[in-house]
């Protein structure tokens, strides 16, 4: 595979991964599944960053991936904490039941 072919293929693959995550956020109503799909989308974006790093021959995009990783870890910690706290109150994981901040 020639260099720019592999970059384009990796970009298309990351798009496919991202869209699979979007489908999951649209279709599923279980908050943990939606959470996993958000992780999928973050992974897809990271993959596109690595493809750009390969295309440009620089490492700045890979440094950016580390920041995305940091935000993903923080999101996982806080998100799961919120999920568990809400589950204690509502006793369900259905997204439609989580309307505390709706007015």
């Amino acid at each position, binding site marked *: 595979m020639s260099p720019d072919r592999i970059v384009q293929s990796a970009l298309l693959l990351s798009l496919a991964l991202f869209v699979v995550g979007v489908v999951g956020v649209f279709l599923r109503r279980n908050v943990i599944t939606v959470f996993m799909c958000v992780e999928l989308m973050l992974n897809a974006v990271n993959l596109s960053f690595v493809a750009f790093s390969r*295309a440009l021959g620089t490492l700045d995009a890979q*440094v950016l991936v580390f920041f995305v990783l940091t935000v993903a870890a923080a999101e996982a910690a806080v998100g799961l904490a919120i*999920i568990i706290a809400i589950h204690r109150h509502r006793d369900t994981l259905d997204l439609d039941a989580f309307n505390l901040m709706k007015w």
Partner: protein
Amino acid sequence: MNAEAAVFYVLAAITVGSAAVVVLARSLIYSAFALLFTFVGVAGLYLLLGADFLAATQLLIYVGGILVLLLFGVMLTHKLYDLDLRSEVTQFLPGVIVSIGLFAVLALTAWRTDWAGGDGRAPAATTREIGQLFMGRYLLPFEAASILLLVALMGAAMIVRRKRSA
């Protein structure tokens, strides 16, 4: 088809296939374990694209950290003897139509753009370079990210703590 392309297609099949299982599986446990294969597949793709340090980090943080945390979330919110680990599928047709449209637009853009910017070779010895970038050009974002992580973890501990009734 050379070896690189073959490895790429195998990894791509693993990644997208298990991502589809994550979305479509009826059981949360199946979704979580399919997510494991997606993460490992993405790590393999990082290796293929020449980002070796990032591949190791992906395995450490996603598989060793986030996925384990997620499994804890599944275990803590469902009783294990409870067989109802299911989640509903709704809005099938509109969701799929919007997603296919999104994919078409993005893929067309990605395919028609000329991405060739550098010499197209993978940067060698990424670990040393990344360390120097973190300690040089990206020092301030690096420190901000570490503070963000600290605050997020403290906040997570605060949120799940049971309040003592005074």
